């Protein structure tokens, strides 16, 4: 059996990297990701992780360097946040387009401007359609477990994975975490094997060259097929994980959704808050459910539909400022509902931006407003900014 430790979210991902026996790490420090890569550097320095650490001169080079190390057939890790992830943007598509099983820790931080050091999902959401798997953890335990799941899934489908944890709310919060034994992890995550593309003088090939319209579409089609296959693969890998480590993980986690008057849909660290508030309200006789979406890419449409189809209303909380339209999570839920012909009202709430706490009070306000809109049979064409101060209006 493993042991129980008190560690932060950053530290949890670093433990996942250590347990995954990563070979090459390249990273550039940025708040609030810094302690994550410091911890990895520490593990290497102490000899607890036999890896090379490349202290690159930028995030752009961090992702570039791990792409280079990955095509050499090594297991790699990098991490970023906010503007640093935005700087990587160009290489985000290179990593996934070359089908490289890279795992990247994201300490979610708002994109400028205005500058903010703190959490929202605007950074990872800006990368959401570039063909990476995106997992959003709601606890330090999930941060560790998702890192291990990430390597396993990445190497099966040959796609990169972002493991996202909310800046400060998870990166810097200490929680009790069950740390698995190395031997168990080795069973769950076999030694790295290179895929179909590699740079090897004994078997030369040219990688990543220019393509024409004759092949571009087909390559992106296959990329998309591989990404979508994760919806089916994830439950199998999660089942094996549960059998080995005793913890259950899902694409999305529903509590009390069946017949609920309102289901609150969340991503990331606010999921626990939403579950607590909804639980209290259910104890008071109100029918309030929650759905935590853990896997945002690929978006598990059918699972979301199945969990939400018997709800009377859905309140989607986006911790992301998608200006000019719905938040990204609401777009997904509405799209899934429309595709399934569901006529359940979906209300989009934007909140928790730039580190503002998505507090129990805010979740209660979300639920109250959703109940009110449903009661009055009102539509909300654009998102409701639920925690904006009156003075800004």
């Amino acid at each position, binding site marked *: 059996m493993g042991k129980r430790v008190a560690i932060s979210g950053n530290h949890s991902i670093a433990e996942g990297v250590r347990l995954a026996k990563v070979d090459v790490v390249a990273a550039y420090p940025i708040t609030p990701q810094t302690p994550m890569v410091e911890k990895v550097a520490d593990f290497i320095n102490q000899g607890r992780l036999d890896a090379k650490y490349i202290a690159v001169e930028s995030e*752009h080079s961090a992702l570039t360097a791990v792409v280079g190390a990955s095509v050499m057939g090594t297991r790699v890790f990098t991490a970023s946040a906010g503007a640093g992830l935005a700087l990587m943007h160009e290489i985000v598509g290179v990593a996934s387009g070359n089908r490289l099983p890279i795992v990247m820790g994201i300490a979610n931080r708002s994109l400028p401007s205005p500058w903010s050091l703190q959490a929202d999902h605007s950074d990872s959401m800006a990368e959401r359609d570039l063909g990476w798997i995106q997992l959003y953890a709601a606890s330090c335990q999930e941060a560790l477990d998702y890192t291990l799941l990430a390597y396993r899934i990445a190497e099966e489908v040959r796609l990169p994975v972002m493991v996202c944890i909310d800046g400060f709310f998870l990166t810097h919060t200490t929680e009790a975490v069950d740390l698995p034994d190395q031997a168990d992890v080795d069973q769950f995550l076999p030694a790295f094997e290179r895929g179909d593309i590699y740079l090897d003088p004994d078997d030369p090939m040219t990688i990543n060259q220019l393509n024409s319209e004759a092949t571009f579409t087909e390559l992106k089609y296959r990329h998309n097929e591989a990404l979508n296959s994760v919806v089916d693969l994830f439950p199998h890998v999660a089942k094996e994980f549960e059998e080995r480590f005793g913890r259950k993980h899902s694409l999305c986690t529903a509590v009390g959704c069946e017949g609920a008057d309102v289901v609150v849909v969340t991503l990331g660290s606010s999921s626990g808050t939403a579950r607590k508030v909804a639980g209290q309200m259910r104890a008071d006789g109100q029918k309030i459910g929650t759905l935590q979406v853990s896997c945002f890419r690929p978006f598990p449409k059918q699972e979301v539909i199945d969990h939400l189809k018997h709800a009377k209303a859905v309140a989607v909380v986006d911790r992301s400022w998608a200006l000019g339209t719905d938040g990204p999570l609401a777009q997904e839920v509405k799209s899934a509902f429309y595709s399934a012909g569901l006529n359940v009202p979906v209300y989009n709430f934007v909140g928790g931006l730039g580190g503002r706490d998505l507090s129990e009070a805010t979740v209660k306000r979300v639920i109250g407003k959703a109940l009110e809109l449903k009661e009055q049979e009102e539509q909300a064409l654009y998102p409701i900014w639920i925690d904006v101060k009156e003075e800004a209006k």
Partner: protein
Amino acid sequence: MADLVSKGLTTCEGCGMELIARSILDVLGQNTIMLTPPSCSAILTGFGSETGWKVPAFQSNLENIAAYCSGISVALEHQNKTDINVVALAGDGGTVDIGLQALSGAVERGHKFIYVCYDNEAYMNTGIQRSGSTPVGAWTTTTPGGKKEPKKNIVEMLLAQGIPYVATASVGYIDDFKKKVAKAREIDGPAYIHTFSPCPPGWRAKPRDTIKIAKLAVDTNLFPLFEAIDGEVRVTRKVRKVASIKEYLELQGRFRNIRDEEVESLATDAENYYNKLLESEAK
């Protein structure tokens, strides 16, 4: 020796870069990984299912070829594969402009790789736009009145950074270039070779004059040939009789409208720099 670059490539007639590529692999052989950025050298890396390389190759982005080299080099180190050469073949724009940060970072970290810049003194693959490496007085499509600023000296920047091996070379003196590639291979760290590479279409020059122009650049002292091992400068081709800058310029339509004072400044700068190199050699 087997030819490790295919015949019949679609580089332009008289292309200096192609000669550089062939010469690199003539020296380094099969145990080499080539990287090219989006640029003329990407022609060698190929299109669709075709490639010009018979060694493994990777197409980088424009600004990060040295960062790819970093990751590849460190992975090889981790795998104890120390006999594989990692080579970047990038143009001047991808090196002295947009690629400078990644190059400087990779050099500072000391990774083992060879960076060959083919300097054709402008963005040629996009159709002749000025780069930091374009010389004074040269016409490009974005300097229609001729470039006003002098050429950026990347080699001095790398020397200042303490790179273990740096050299200039010219396709006009290909044996000298090959010797430098062979030396670069032996360096346990980053090695950089800045190679003068005429571009007939971009320079409005005759393809048959590529070698002649490349020799003249050296013989006029506009592009002196030297190397520095751990900062020890050695001029590898001493110019006994300085050739005519006028002749050099007249072979290239890009200098058709160069002003007299610009010719003057080119000549003065060339003389001063060459003398400075000789002085540092003497030290």
